[in-house]
């Protein structure tokens, strides 16, 4: 648990977010979210220019960020108080997820197959270990997968002295809590925070995501979508831009999410200005792809020419449709969409609704690149489509104004 808690030190990098006009839990959660992106980017740049990671090289910049941004821990001027039972329910759902993680019931295999080994070797090398990534026998570890999760793991390892598989698993519930806290702050709805926590708790259990990149990706996605949907100031755009960069730098699917969010925001705002939100994501991911190409690491991002098997559309839709019932009669979908029956503000819900629907389309589009994707869908659909479920909860909250 110490290892997982050490990750919270990244909040220093995002200290500017403590000045947002939100409740204190949301401000800390958003500072943590932005801190992961800023701290991870710093470690990435340090590695590119040959600076070895150490408590000094990563800790000092964190302190400088916190000091220069200034902390504000006083209560926010705005915001409504949520009934205490809603906060208690969120806390219990967090504990339920923590139980699942601590009893090894929701661990992802990807932690063992590549996220853990990458973190372990990056930590030993005190930098992004290119020789390790391009070792031919480790090609199944997806050498060009974005590195933010291993960077986050190395951050914790630097402070605790070693990489911890248990720490990586226990980080999952902390990320869930941060996502729910940020969402509650933006939506000012404790009720829908309970629903989001319940959907994610079930999704984490069904998809077995702890220790993998999905909880981190969901944190970025929920923060970005909440900031844009419940936008009150330009600062929210900044938070969204940072969170989108985090999504793109965490998983391949994150880049598709960024594209979908930007397109949906342009449509709903009827302006091209939201393109600016993608700049940090484009810089981070673009530089990573260039870096990967230069060092012979291109794998997933080098498959742009892979043919699309449109003849398999019916099959893919059928298998995906079956898999995302979650073996629970589509309960999470019903739960996240049912509140829309009471919708009052469809206009505000448009952005997350478009993103949720487009994320399903994106997943199917990815699956269509494999001639026989049944195994892939069965292995990933329950995890990947948590993005859509979370988007629909955000939409329900937005519509229920």
């Amino acid at each position, binding site marked *: 648990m110490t290892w997982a808690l050490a990750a919270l030190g990244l909040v220093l990098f995002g200290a500017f977010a403590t000045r947002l006009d939100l409740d204190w839990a949301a401000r800390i959660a958003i500072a943590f979210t932005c801190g992961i992106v800023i701290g991870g980017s710093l470690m990435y740049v340090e590695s590119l220019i040959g600076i070895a990671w150490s408590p000094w090289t990563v800790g000092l910049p964190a302190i400088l960020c916190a000091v220069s941004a200034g902390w504000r821990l006083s209560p926010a001027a705005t915001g409504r108080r949520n009934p205490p039972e809603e906060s208690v*329910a969120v806390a219990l*759902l967090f504990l*339920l997820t923590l*139980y*699942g993680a*601590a*009893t*090894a*019931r*929701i*661990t992802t*295999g990807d*932690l*063992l*197959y*590549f996220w*853990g*080994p990458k*973190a*372990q*070797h990056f930590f*030993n090398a005190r930098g992004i270990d290119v020789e390790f990534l391009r070792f031919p*026998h*480790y090609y*199944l*570890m997806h050498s060009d997968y974005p590195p933010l999760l291993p960077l986050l793991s190395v951050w914790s390892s630097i402070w605790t002295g070693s*990489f911890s*598989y*248990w720490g990586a*698993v226990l980080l999952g519930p902390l990320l869930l809590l941060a996502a729910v806290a940020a969402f509650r702050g933006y939506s000012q709805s404790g*009720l*829908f925070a*309970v*629903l989001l*926590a*319940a*959907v994610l*708790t*079930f999704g984490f*259990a*069904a998809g*077995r995501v702890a*220790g993998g990149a999905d909880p981190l990706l969901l944190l970025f996605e929920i923060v970005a979508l909440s900031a844009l949907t419940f936008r009150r100031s330009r600062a929210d755009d900044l938070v969204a831009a940072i969170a989108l960069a985090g999504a793109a730098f965490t998983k391949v699917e994150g880049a598709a999410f960024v594209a979908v969010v930007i397109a949906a925001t342009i449509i709903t705002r009827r302006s091209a200005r939201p393109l600016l939100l993608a700049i940090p994501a484009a810089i981070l991911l673009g530089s990573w792809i260039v870096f990967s190409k230069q060092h012979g690491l291109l794998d997933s991002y080098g498959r742009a020419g892979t043919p699309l098997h449109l003849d398999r559309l019916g099959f893919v839709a059928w298998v995906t449709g079956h898999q995302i019932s*979650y073996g*629970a009669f589509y*309960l*999470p979908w*019903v*739960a996240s969409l*049912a*509140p829309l*029956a*009471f919708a009052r503000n469809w206009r505000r819900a448009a952005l997350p609704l478009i993103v949720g629907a487009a994320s399903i389309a994106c997943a199917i589009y990815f699956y269509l690149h494999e001639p026989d994707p049944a195994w892939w869908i069965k292995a990933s659909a329950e995890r990947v489509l948590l993005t859509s479920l979370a988007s629909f909860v955000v939409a329900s909250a937005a519509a*229920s104004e």
Partner: protein
Amino acid sequence: MLRGVVWTASALLVIATLQRYAVRRPPYFAAPRTVFQHVDVRQHPLHGVLVLLPQVEPLIPRGSDVTVFHPKNGETQNDHDTYLTAVGLLPHHNVLPPFTAGPDVPPEQLIEWVVAVGEPFTHPRYAPVAGFPNGWLYRVRR
């Protein structure tokens, strides 16, 4: 009405979550031995790997070449899950795929150390060094 829908949906999701946890086998309130102990309705093969590798790790000199796999009929097999897992659990060793201990590999090119999980490895050029409840450590006979 909206509150009732949200609370009911949340309660049903909690019940569904508890059902998922329950089918992943008891004990429910004991510290698990590995991060993979209760991920499925049956014991996952990688649980044994996670138990075994910390036990054999001190017996293999750092920097050595080693492969890790579940033997099939006493021989090597393509066991990506196991050897990729070993890459993370043996970060100070050179973990290579199982074929490096295959029957067709010339004796001088056989990998030095083999960790066999679950069942014994019967390659005649390898001698057991240590045995554990979840597997064996072998070293090549040069």
